């Protein structure tokens, strides 16, 4: 009877244990769910989504009506593809209406300036599918006039200056059309063109309109296993339908104020996203990717995604823009999200979602900035959303800025303020740790670095701490070493002497 009771009790305990384990597993499922349900968030070290305060809020939503274009008897924005900001002037490539809209944005107000639909001094004088627009500091405007196969440059009064057309060059396939899609112009007037159907990188034109080659081409990746498979195990028909070894095309580009090109690409295999794909790149003058990736994962937008979701897969970066201090912002057109990264490739914030409210997107396609304000163009909603940083967002920028300028005390203070608003913000811990390290408070710095999972910096702080510790405790260490080494030696000696004495006695007895 007793036995039976014990056994049943044991079984019950076992079952309880199993149930507890199952419950524990239930909480584990959070780990796989990195797909954010909140508007603003950030990824922590474990690549889990952590809710965060909003870094930006909607200041204004601009569409044709708010610009007063209805009163002017014009059509609103239709299928706009791009926007560009120069000073306070905003240029929108209103592609669906074959025109460029220009307006000024000041103090939270948008004031309509003009519609550019006709230019003087060239044929054709109108645009046909203007996919992108660029304006330099002198008021000259460049338009990627896609279906007229040209990039045209006009001055402030819209007089034709020059045009960049299909290059007469062996490297360009003469049988295919020249379809400029995105453009960027550097300070020397060189034009970089991202053309549809060109996968050799960006086409580069000198300011005298001569074509001088391509930059930023993807290296062709060669896979031996793939090659053997295709060569020996596939029929000719199969080979024809499978993709061939071609480098990927770019999606968009942005010229930063230092003359580097930020580029995004969306065409890559899902498995490569953390490896060779490099969806965000920063190209130098000879087309090498110099983007700094000092975080655990490279900057790729969302780090994990729900399998059952319709919007499955890596973020598709439609556009990119670079703010001050090497901070850059990209927009994911698939999930309608914006991601901010600092110059070290560490995510500052992420926000946005799909929807119909202000601050959400249907198909965010272009992005630019004015100071710290962000302008996002939505192709389907036909409007432009202006975001201004909140107190929290501004604090992050200021803390980064003061740190880069070398004002570590101020930076420390600002990071502590950020930490008060968001205790999950590892960059704040890292920032505080850095300034503590400079103040030679190693132990505290180590604490903060550990929380931020900054291994290298922790190592640096720990090295100093260890040095000081050894210097302080050197006598104890020596004493300990003596205890460990000398004492057993002496004990051994005593034991041996004893043994010898016993042996001596025994030999005496035998005799």
């Amino acid at each position, binding site marked *: 009877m007793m036995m039976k009771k014990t056994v049943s009790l044991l079984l019950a305990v076992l079952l309880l244990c199993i149930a507890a*384990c199952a419950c*524990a*597993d239930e909480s*584990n499922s959070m*780990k796989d769910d990195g797909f954010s349900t909140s508007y603003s968030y950030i990824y922590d*070290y*474990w690549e889990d989504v952590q809710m965060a305060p909003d870094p930006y809020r909607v200041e204004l939503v601009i569409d044709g009506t708010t610009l007063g274009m209805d009163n002017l008897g014009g059509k609103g924005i239709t299928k706009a593809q791009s926007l560009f900001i120069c000073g306070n002037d905003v240029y929108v490539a209103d592609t669906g209406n074959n025109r460029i809209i220009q307006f000024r944005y000041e103090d939270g107000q948008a004031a309509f300036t003009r519609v550019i639909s006709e230019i003087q001094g060239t044929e054709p004088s109108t645009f046909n599918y203007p996919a992108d627009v660029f304006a330099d500091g002198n008021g000259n405007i460049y338009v990627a006039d896609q279906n007229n196969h040209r990039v045209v440059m006009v001055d402030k009064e819209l007089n034709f200056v020059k045009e960049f057309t299909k290059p007469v060059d062996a490297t360009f396939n003469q049988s295919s059309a020249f379809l400029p899609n995105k453009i960027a112009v550097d300070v020397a007037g060189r034009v970089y063109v991202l053309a549809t159907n060109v996968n050799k990188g960006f086409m580069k034109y000198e300011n005298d309109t001569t074509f001088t080659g391509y930059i930023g081409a993807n290296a062709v990746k060669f896979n031996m296993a793939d090659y053997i498979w295709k060569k020996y195990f596939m029929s000719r028909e199969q080979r024809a339908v499978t993709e061939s070894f071609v480098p990927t095309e770019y999606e968009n580009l942005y010229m930063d104020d230092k003359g580097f090109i930020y580029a995004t690409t969306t065409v890559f295999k899902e498995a490569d996203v953390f490896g060779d794909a490099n969806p965000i790149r920063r190209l130098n003058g000879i087309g090498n990717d110099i983007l700094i990736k000092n975080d655990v994962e490279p900057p790729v937008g969302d780090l994990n995604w729900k399998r059952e979701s319709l919007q499955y897969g890596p973020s598709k970066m439609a556009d990119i823009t670079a703010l001050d201090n090497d901070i850059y912002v990209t927009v994911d057109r698939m999930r309608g999200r914006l991601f901010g990264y600092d110059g070290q490739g560490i995510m500052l914030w992420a926000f946005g979602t799909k929807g119909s409210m202000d601050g959400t997107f249907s198909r965010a396609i272009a992005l630019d900035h004015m100071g710290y304000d962000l302008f996002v163009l939505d192709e389907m909603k036909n409007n432009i959303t202006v975001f201004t940083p909140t107190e929290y967002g501004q604090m992050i920028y200021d803390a980064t800025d003061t740190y880069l300028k070398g004002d570590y005390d101020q930076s420390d203070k600002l990071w502590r303020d950020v930490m008060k608003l968001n205790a999950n913000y590892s960059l704040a811990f890292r920032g505080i740790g850095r300034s503590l390290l400079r103040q030679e408070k190693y132990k505290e710095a180590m604490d903060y670095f*550990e929380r931020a*999972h900054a*291994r*290298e910096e*922790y*190592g*640096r702080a*720990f*090295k100093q701490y*260890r040095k000081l510790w050894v210097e302080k405790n050197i006598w104890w260490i020596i004493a300990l070493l003596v205890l460990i080494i000398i004492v057993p030696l002496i004990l051994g000696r005593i034991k041996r002497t004893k043994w010898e004495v016993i042996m001596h006695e025994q030999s005496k007895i035998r005799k």
Partner: protein
Amino acid sequence: MSKAKSVNETSVQTKGGKAKAWLDRYKDSLRYALHVITHPFDGFWDLVHEKRGTMAAAHTFLFLFLIIRVLKLMLTNFQFISAPVQYINVLEEMGSLLLPFLVLCIANWAMTTLFEGKGRFKDIYMGMCYALVPYIIIQLPMILISNMLTFEEGSLYSVMISISVIWSAFLAFVGLMEIHDYGPGKTFIFMIVTIVGAAVILFLVLVFFSLLSDAVAFFVSFYREIVFRLN
């Protein structure tokens, strides 16, 4: 020395003496691990054929291995290992090592028995447990040492970890060779065969459980049907 041994033999009769003898033998077999890992060829032969090892010592090593594995995840400095401590289930972690270990031992026994392997299951299990000893004696201090190293000195840490793993793997190889009285080539082949065997075991277990759950589901639905009809 012989005098001490005879003393043990004479006191076997009493109950306390029996326990003491067992304890001595256990201690001796624990100490013998140091001989095994430094002289594997002689060590493993004597371990099995001269009865120098005990099952108790083998259990101890396996248990220590599991414990150290968990301690390593929990206590190693985050500069070298970062385990998501908030998600770790200690029992799960230990089980994920224990189960493959046992399945591999069973698979090895099952395969080598068919091909003139001299080792019994007990011998294989004991040998493999003794092969874990370098892992234990290197990794345990490394947990402590990792907290005294900086990130730049991480190569020291990783070298020591590699040494412990390679040493243990080498011991496992030599151990199987000596236990089964095989040549090196045959041992190597049977290591691969063992992995295949383990896969087969896993497959059979999975099939068994899925069939079992189907059977249970059948009776459950049968019962429900009856209850439904009766009402």
